[in-house]
C-alpha cells in the first residue's frame, strides 16, 4: 500500500523550487491526468447504479422492491463480467466490416506495463456505461418479469446487443481507425451516448414492456389507464439526485481527457437538467393542474438524457432549450405511451431514455454551436446533412435495439416464459421470487 508515500514526503521536502532538470519526474503527465480524470468519471458513473436502483424502487410498489433492487445489482454484476469477457472486444476490438470488433476479449493481449494502464481505465469507464444501458431495462419491465429470464436478458444485452451498436458509433475510440464502426464513419455525433446508451436501453425496455403486457390492474377492461403509484417517492427523489450527480461523470468524463472542455460540458449538463425539471413541471402543471412530483423528477432525467449527445457541441443557452424541450417531451411521451399505446412502463424508462435520447441526438443537428465542439447545427447555419446523419443514427439505434429486444424477449417468452403468474404478481415478486419482503415489519396496505 501507499508504495511511494515516504518517497513523496521526501519530494515535498526537497522540491521547494523544482529546477527544470526535475521536470520529467516531478510534474504530472497529461496521460496520467487523463487516467485520473477518466477513473474519477467512471466512479461517478458507477454510482448511477445506486440512482437507478432508488428511482426504480421508489416508483414501483413495496411488494416488488427487493426484486427491483436485485435486478439492478445483477445487471451491474453480470454486466461487468460479461463486458470484460466479451462485450469490450466486440465494441472496441479490431474492426471487421464496420460491424464488429474482434479482439481484446477478456482484455487478452493487453500488456499492463506498456499502454495497458490506459486501456484498463478506459475499460472501466466503458463498463459502467454498458451497465447503465442494461439497467435502464429493469425499470420498463418492473413488477411482472421473471427473475431468471431477466438475468438472461441482462447478460445478452451486456455481452452482445449494447457492444455491437456501441461499436458502430464509438468503435474507433480505443484503436483509432483500426476499430472504426460504420456509423461514426458517416459523421454521427453522440458525444456521451444519448443514443448509444440511453436510447438503446430505452428501446429494449420498450420491447420488453410490449411483450410482457401491462401489469395486472393497470388497464380496466375498457382500456382506461389506472395509476399504480410508486411506494416511496423520497427514495425516488434521492435516486434522481444521485443520477444527476453521476451524470457529471457521464458527460464531462466522456472527454476522457483533462482540458477546459470538461467545465463547459458540466455547465451544459447542469443547465439542461435544471431546464428539464422546469419543462416537465410546467407541462404537468398545465396539463393536469398540479405540479406533479414524479414528472418533475423524470424531467431532470429527461433533460440529462437529452443533453448527453450534444453536451460537447452546444452552448449553455442551447442546453437550456434542449433540456426544456426534453422535459416537456417526456410528459407528453409518458402520457402517449400510457394512454394511447397502452404500454405499461412503470418508471417511464422508454420515454425518458428512449424518446428523450432520440430527441437529444437529433437536437445536435440543430443546436451544435460554433465555438463549442466541432460541428455546426442548422440553427447556426450548418448543413442539413448533419441532421440526416443524426437521424440515421437514431433510426438504426431504434431498429437494432427494438428489433433485438423483440427477438430476445420473444425467444424467452416462447421457451422459459418471461412473466410471473398472476397470483405471484398480486402477492409481489419479493415473496415468490426471492422468499423475502423488503419491509417485513412495516404495515403496508397491500391492495394499493
Amino acid at each position: 500500500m501507499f508504495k511511494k508515500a515516504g518517497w513523496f514526503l521526501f519530494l515535498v521536502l526537497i522540491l521547494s523550487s523544482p529546477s527544470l532538470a526535475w521536470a520529467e519526474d516531478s510534474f504530472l503527465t497529461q496521460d496520467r491526468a487523463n487516467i485520473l480524470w477518466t477513473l474519477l468519471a467512471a466512479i461517478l458513473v458507477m454510482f448511477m447504479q445506486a440512482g437507478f436502483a432508488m428511482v426504480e424502487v421508489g416508483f414501483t410498489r413495496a411488494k416488488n422492491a427487493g426484486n427491483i433492487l436485485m435486478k439492478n445489482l445483477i445487471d451491474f454484476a453480470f454486466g461487468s463480467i460479461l463486458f470484460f469477457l466479451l462485450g469490450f472486444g466486440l465494441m472496441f476490438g479490431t474492426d471487421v466490416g464496420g460491424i464488429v470488433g474482434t479482439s481484446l476479449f477478456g482484455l487478452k493481449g493487453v500488456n499492463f506495463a506498456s499502454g495497458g494502464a490506459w486501456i484498463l481505465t478506459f475499460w472501466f469507464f466503458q463498463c459502467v456505461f454498458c451497465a447503465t444501458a442494461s439497467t435502464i431495462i429493469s425499470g420498463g419491465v418492473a413488477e411482472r418479469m421473471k427473475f431468471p429470464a431477466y438475468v438472461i436478458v441482462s447478460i445478452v444485452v451486456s455481452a452482445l446487443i449494447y457492444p455491437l451498436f456501441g461499436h458502430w458509433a464509438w468503435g474507433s475510440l480505443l484503436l483509432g481507425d483500426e476499430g472504426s464502426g460504420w456509423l461514426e464513419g458517416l459523421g454521427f455525433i453522440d458525444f456521451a451516448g444519448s443514443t448509444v446508451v440511453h436510447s438503446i436501453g430505452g428501446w429494449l425496455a420498450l420491447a420488453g414492456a410490449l411483450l410482457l403486457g401491462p401489469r395486472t390492474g393497470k388497464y380496466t377492461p375498457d382500456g382506461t389507464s389506472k395509476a399504480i403509484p410508486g411506494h416511496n417517492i423520497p427514495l425516488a427523489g434521492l435516486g434522481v439526485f444521485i443520477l444527476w450527480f453521476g451524470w457529471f461523470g457521464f458527460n464531462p468524463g466522456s472527454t476522457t481527457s483533462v482540458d477546459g472542455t470538461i467545465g463547459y460540458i458540466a455547465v451544459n449538463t447542469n443547465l439542461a437538467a435544471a431546464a428539464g425539471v422546469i419543462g416537465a413541471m410546467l407541462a404537468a402543471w398545465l396539463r393536469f393542474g398540479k405540479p406533479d412530483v414524479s414528472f418533475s423528477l423524470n424531467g431532470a432525467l429527461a433533460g440529462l438524457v437529452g443533453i448527453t449527445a450534444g453536451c460537447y457541441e452546444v452552448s449553455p443557452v442551447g442546453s437550456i432549450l434542449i433540456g426544456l424541450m426534453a422535459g416537456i417531451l417526456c410528459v407528453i411521451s409518458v402520457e402517449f405511451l400510457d394512454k394511447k399505446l397502452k404500454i405499461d412502463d412503470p418508471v417511464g424508462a422508454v420515454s425518458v431514455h428512449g424518446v428523450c435520447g432520440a430527441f437529444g441526438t437529433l437536437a445536435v443537428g440543430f443546436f451544435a454551436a460554433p465555438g463549442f465542439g466541432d460541428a455546426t447545427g442548422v440553427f447556426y447555419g450548418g448543413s442539413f446533412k448533419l441532421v440526416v446523419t443524426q437521424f440515421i443514427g437514431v433510426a438504426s439505434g431504434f431498429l437494432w435495439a427494438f428489433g433485438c429486444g423483440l427477438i430476445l424477449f420473444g425467444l424467452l417468452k416462447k421457451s422459459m416464459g418471461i412473466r410471473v403468474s398472476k397470483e405471484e404478481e398480486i402477492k409481489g415478486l419479493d415473496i415468490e421470487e426471492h422468499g423475502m419482503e423488503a419491509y417485513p415489519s412495516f404495515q403496508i396496505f397491500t391492495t394499493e
Partner: protein
Amino acid sequence: MKLVIAYIRPEKLNDVKEKLYAAKIYNMSVTNVLGSGRQKGFTETYRGVLKEVNLLKKVRLEIGVNEDFVQPCLKAIQEGAYTGKEGDGVIFVLEIAEALRIRTEETGPQAMG
C-alpha cells in the same frame, strides 16, 4: 342493525368492493390485519435461516348494515372473496345496539346508510 366483519385475501378486496357496490352497499371500513386460520402460513428463508410466517396478511372489512342488507352483504362478500383455496377467510355478523351518524346526528337504522 348488524355489523358485518369479514377477513379476506388482500388481493380480493377489489372484487369484493365491486360486488358490494353492485349490491348497493357503499359504506365500509377496511383494515390491514395479520391472520392465522386453516391456511397454516408458510416458511421462507432469510439469509439461509428458516422464517416461519404463520400470520398471513389479510384485509379486514367492517360494514354496518340494516337488517335487510345483511344477506345481500354476505352474498356479495362471499362471491367476491371466493377462490376455493384455503385462506379465503370468514365473515362474522354482530348485533349493533345503537348507531349515530356524527354529521347528521341521525340515530338507529337511519344512521347506517
